[in-house]
């Protein structure tokens, strides 16, 4: 499969509301911060990749919708007030797929995974399976800032079956021992940086699984 538009987004928490307003105006004002963060990165990736066709959306997080969880438990439940639809935690992690579909992207399947940092190779592996049914799979790693001074993170890339200009060929590596260790926090950033400067194939591993990235053409 081929990887397009590795897109790295880091936003300081204090800048985040303005970034969302600039990109989406009032469209996402009720969506909750985690879903907004997903959309901000995912839409940037789609803008860079272009194209159309049935789209799978697959994203992972270690901690999920931290802000919405805190809001729902501390502000709503502890005060005895009903949790409102837009902070309803059961929905928050999964909301990004529906919001992308509402923005006229042809989403056919979507899922949010909770993964530890080393388990990121599960994402391209699952995307490869989804490509049997979707033409493209948008893959992201999203994490809300848990403390001051740490940026929100929303990194995305697009996998597709067919090669195009600027695409990176992406395959499971049979030699994980030769690969550099990457995490959910940096693997897309490393692909993006390598694509701009690298010549030799890039080999990245997480856990016992590794992927190779090769320039196409």
């Amino acid at each position, binding site marked *: 499969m081929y990887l397009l538009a590795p897109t790295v987004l880091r936003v300081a928490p204090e800048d985040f509301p303005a970034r969302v307003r600039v990109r989406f105006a009032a469209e996402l004002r009720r969506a909750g911060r985690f879903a907004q963060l997903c959309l901000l990165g995912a839409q940037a990736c789609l803008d860079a990749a272009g194209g159309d066709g049935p789209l799978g959306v697959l994203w992972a997080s*270690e*901690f*999920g919708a931290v802000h919405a*969880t805190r809001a*729902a*438990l501390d502000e*709503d*439940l502890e005060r005895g007030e*009903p*949790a*409102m*639809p837009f902070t*309803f*935690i*059961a*929905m928050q*992690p*999964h*909301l990004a*797929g*529906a*919001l992308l*579909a*509402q923005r006229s992207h042809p*989403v*056919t*399947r*979507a*899922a*949010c*995974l*909770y*993964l*530890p940092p080393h*388990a990121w190779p*599960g994402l391209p592996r*699952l995307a490869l*399976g989804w490509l049997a*049914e979707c033409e493209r799979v948008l893959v992201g790693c999203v994490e809300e800032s848990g403390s001051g001074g740490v940026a929100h993170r929303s990194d995305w890339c697009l996998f597709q079956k067919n090669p195009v200009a600027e695409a990176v060929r992406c395959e499971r590596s049979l030699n994980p021992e030769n690969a550099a260790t990457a995490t959910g926090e940096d693997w897309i950033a490393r692909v993006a940086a390598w694509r701009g400067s690298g010549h030799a194939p890039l080999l990245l591993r997480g*856990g016992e699984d590794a992927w190779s990235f090769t320039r196409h053409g």
Partner: protein
Amino acid sequence: MTGAFVRAAALASALGPDLDAAVERLAGAPVAPARNTKTGGPWPYFAIPIAGEDWRERAEAIARSVAGDLRREAALAPGEWAALPCIVGSSSFSVGAWDDGGWQALEPSFEFSSSLAKAFGVRGAVTAVSTTCTSGLSALDIARGLVAAGEFHDVLVLGVEFRNRLTVAGFAGLQLLSATAARPCDRERDGLVLGEALAAVLVSAAPAPWRIAALATGMDAASVTGPGPDGTATAKTMRAAMAGARWESAEVDLIKLQSGGGPLADLAEGRAVREIFATAPRSVSLKGALGHTLGASGPAELALLLASLARGRVPATWGFAKPDDELGLEPSGGDAKGLRRVLFNLSGFGGSVMSLALEKAP
């Protein structure tokens, strides 16, 4: 690519602490959900009849019980069992721990999923997936893909939803709950009744009576909290499942409905069924008996349905008494003789729609 089969299943639910008890109870007279519980507050709630004050200890006790049941049925060698990868689907994971222990009792969803896998005695890779009410079926979808691709011979799937006040409060805030009972497809239906369940399904390459012939997914973006009123996305997904299984609509013997008693959601599913089938096949809903077990509902309803069919019965739809002409669905239980093809619908918040095609070996 190889086939994927349902090798074994186990369930703890409001119907009983194990699958045999649940099937036996489902064959009897309907039982009303509990009321005025700590979890449900004023709302009726289908709780697992396993006592325990400490949320975490109770969750692990339920997990060990279900694990024992599944392990007996699966009959894997100890080494095979221990090596199983585990995919956990839930909409709430450990959020119920907050009810008793506050913030310090909460743990990240992946860690909670890993602790469940540990309670099951498996040491393979753990994946946690959240797609709201379809989470458990999404987990089964991932497992099916891994088995079909030949990466694993067997994969453990858990659908998990344990009691928690937050989920009840969320559904109450959305005005989606019934104050009395779940009445799927009934003229007097007025909302959902929630419940808890832990279901375990072993997806395998080894041939078993029920094969996963196809699993189709869709996205209904009409609203993030309910299906589009015309049922278009549901119909499209059901069609995709039938196409994947290479079935004609006339070959479907039974539809396991998503229907949980929500006035508009049931209507949308009814429209989808009527759009596809000139004459609707036999149908069943299990949410009147289990409650809506949200992220657990896929594996939980799958386990209960297949166990009932194995005993030769299509279960009755508890809560259904008066047909709704506008809906056009009349679930009916009875003899399951000759039944081979089941279409299994599930949908959830965030637009998630799934349809599973199950085919019985000749």
